[in-house]
């Protein structure tokens, strides 16, 4: 759960917000808080995962520091959001390790996975460094080993996130039942609205224009870079899924032609995953520190870096698959993807899960 000091500060802040309400039409955080009169840890978690940290409400706040009330909603919600990622992680110890030092944990995981893959590939050492033009991936890492490894890790990540998500959802429902709520909207409608909001990043330009980056500067870049990242990720997933179907259903084996569906989708997605994470990382450099430090031990950066590396090694593999470096490149690419999968339940990736759940709750209430 969130720590007591944070809950106390959150309560103080949100109580002032609830008596003011000037920010009501910036984003769902405010209508959601207006439905509550008291704010417990669950409410804070809920509101924190509705917040995009755009900063409009800080710049508009008549009580922002140095005012004696010292209201800074983006900062307190950023802290709550980070704490909620750790609090709902399963198993807790892994979440803990990742949250306290994302960079070191990831590096350790990467080292272990690379060594493991190298060991596997040593079964046929000649394939690892062969310049054989056939681009025979399965000569380096046998198909069965790949399927076993990725299957196991994906399954683990899915289970971990399912557990985290259901705990998060259970607590959302335990939050203060709004006084005027009545019955919640049907789940199907809430789900549809939530998914629509998430896929369009509606609340990053919910007021009709883009949200601020700094005071009066409203730029669309954060939204576009996020779109690149998210849709790039989806395209890569689609590419992998189609390739798996090709392999297991039709018996068509990799490597696939440049004009094939897996390669086209993968290349487009890979491009998005190069541009998006780079852009988001660059935007972080110019971000107003007053909006809070969302990074705990580099949570955000590590996720962006893994996405970027996944794409970089994947695209390099595509171009150099007939060269002598194919073997090591394949090992590296697979390792990065495996570690990415392994860290999904503990890193910034979970924001997507929690935000959609929070949005479902939001649309249910409103």
């Amino acid at each position, binding site marked *: 759960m969130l720590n007591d000091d944070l809950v106390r500060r959150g309560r103080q802040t949100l109580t002032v917000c609830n008596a003011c309400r000037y920010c009501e*039409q910036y984003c769902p955080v405010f209508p959601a808080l207006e439905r509550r009169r008291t704010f417990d840890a669950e409410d804070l978690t809920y509101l924190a995962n509705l917040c995009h940290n755009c900063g409009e409400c800080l710049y508009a706040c008549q009580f922002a520091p140095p005012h004696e009330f010292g209201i800074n909603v983006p900062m307190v919600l950023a802290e709550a959001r980070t704490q909620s990622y750790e609090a709902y992680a399963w198993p807790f110890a892994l979440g803990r390790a990742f949250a306290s030092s994302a960079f070191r944990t990831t590096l350790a995981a990467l080292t272990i996975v690379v060594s493991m893959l190298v060991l596997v590939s040593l079964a046929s050492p000649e394939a690892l460094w062969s310049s054989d033009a056939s681009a025979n991936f399965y000569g380096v890492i046998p198909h069965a080993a790949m399927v076993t490894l990725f299957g196991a890790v994906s399954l683990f990540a899915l289970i971990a996130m399912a557990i985290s998500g259901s705990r998060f959802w259970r607590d959302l429902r335990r939050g203060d039942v709004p006084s005027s709520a009545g019955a919640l909207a049907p789940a199907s409608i809430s789900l549809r609205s939530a998914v629509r909001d998430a896929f369009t990043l509606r609340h990053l330009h919910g*007021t009709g224009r883009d949200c601020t980056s700094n005071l009066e500067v409203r730029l669309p870049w954060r939204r576009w870079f996020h779109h690149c990242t998210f849709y790039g990720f989806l395209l890569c997933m689609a590419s992998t899924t189609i390739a798996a179907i090709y392999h297991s259903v039709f018996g068509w084996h990799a490597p696939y032609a440049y004009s094939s569906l897996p390669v086209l989708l993968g290349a487009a997605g890979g491009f998005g995953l190069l541009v998006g994470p780079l852009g988001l990382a660059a935007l972080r450099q110019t971000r107003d520190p007053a909006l809070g430090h969302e990074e705990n031990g580099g949570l955000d950066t590590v996720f962006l870096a893994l996405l970027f590396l996944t794409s970089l090694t994947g695209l390099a593999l595509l171009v150099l698959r007939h060269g002598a470096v194919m073997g090591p490149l394949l090992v590296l690419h697979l390792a990065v993807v495996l570690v990415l999968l392994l860290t999904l339940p503990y890193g910034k990736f979970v924001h997507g899960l929690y935000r959609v759940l929070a949005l479902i709750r939001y649309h249910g209430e409103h």
Partner: protein
Amino acid sequence: MTQKPEYDVAVIGGGNAALCAAITARRAGARVIVLERAPRDFRGGNSRHTRNFRCLHTTPGEYLTGVYGEDEFLSDLHSVNGGAIDDTLARLAIGQSANCPEWMAREGVRFQAALHGTLQLGRTNLFFLGGGKALMNSYYASAERLGIDVLYDADVVGLHLAGDRFESVDVAWDRRVRPIHAASVVIASGGFEANLDWLHEVWGDAADNFIVRGTPYNTGVPLKRMLEAGAQSVGEPHECHAIAVDARAPKFDGGIVTRLDCIPLGIVVNSLGQRFYDEGEDVWPKRYAIWGKLIARQPGQIAYSIVDAKSANAFMPSVYPPIVANSIPELARQLTVPSGTLQSTVDAFNRAVRPGTLNLGGLDDCRTEGLTPEKTHWAQRLDTSPFWAYPLRPGITFTYLGLKVDERTRVMMSDGHPAANVYAAGEVMAGNVLLRGYLAGFGMTIGTVFGRIAGEEAARHAER
């Protein structure tokens, strides 16, 4: 003067009226300096705490419902004032308010639909997205783009006039006092509500218990200097916009969140445990602004709003927790109000409540009979524990004593002639159109309309 002054227009103040004047003057080609007394973080005067703008409109708009015509607007203004105001200026403010939103939007201001819980204002008042500070941020950003010099922490300590002609202003800035010359000056520095000494002169010891809802920087120095220089005053020194705020509010700058909306739902007693005014006289928005002065006349300038469990969730949540007790004597002890008197006040009230159908959305038939004073609407027995109380103090918003101006916002001198190059806008001249009551959002109308006129006039004067 032989030498051309460094600025065409000096604007004293940094709130809505000041920025409207500065931007208009700059767009007319003038070289403009804004002298804002507050540091950058607290810029914007009382406009920081505002949220809407009362606005004439003959067709429904994107954010305004229905229509709000000139006659209705003027009659609303007359009804809160209950006396003669300058109808020429009032009609000017009302008429010009119609074309303000378009101008504001061009300067980057964004709007929103009426806030939840203030829907009754959705027809008459246009709300700023994010409130008054967001509005001021837009204006300052626009000023920056236009090349207006903005001096923060600039304390105007002296105004120099030769007869009715402004020459320069003395500004204390960065530990030095320096003169700034300009061809004309716009005074948009607000009232004197944050000047505790001046309030004390007007209200006596009662002033010590006032809470200043807005900026601590409105001490009325430019106003005083102009009056000393022979400007004609308008309005009474004790007239002001003052509401009931939570007694636990900070002395300055507590803004919107310290107000309490529970008064019509229960009873209000003074420190003697006695009621003193009809809590249900009219719908709350219309009576919101009289309670400050009512409490200012009570002993110790303190009062307590008391509701019972039935009403606990029927009003906007407050930033301070209620004082809670399971019985009236226990509540009296916590409030340090005579327990016997409070009990008999509540008993007498409960006995006088006539049956009716409660309707918080309008004037209902829940009233008392045979009580002094009566409660004429929303009277329900206080009989369900726990009982909640909120301590109340007068919360002064702004004062009405100001500079008399003509329809070109020229400051009138006591000989009946306008000053040659001195213009006034905003709170500092609000007394021309506000005698005693207050109409929500009208302060921003005054600031925007007269600020724009003052900027235009000051720039035109400087051209000559």
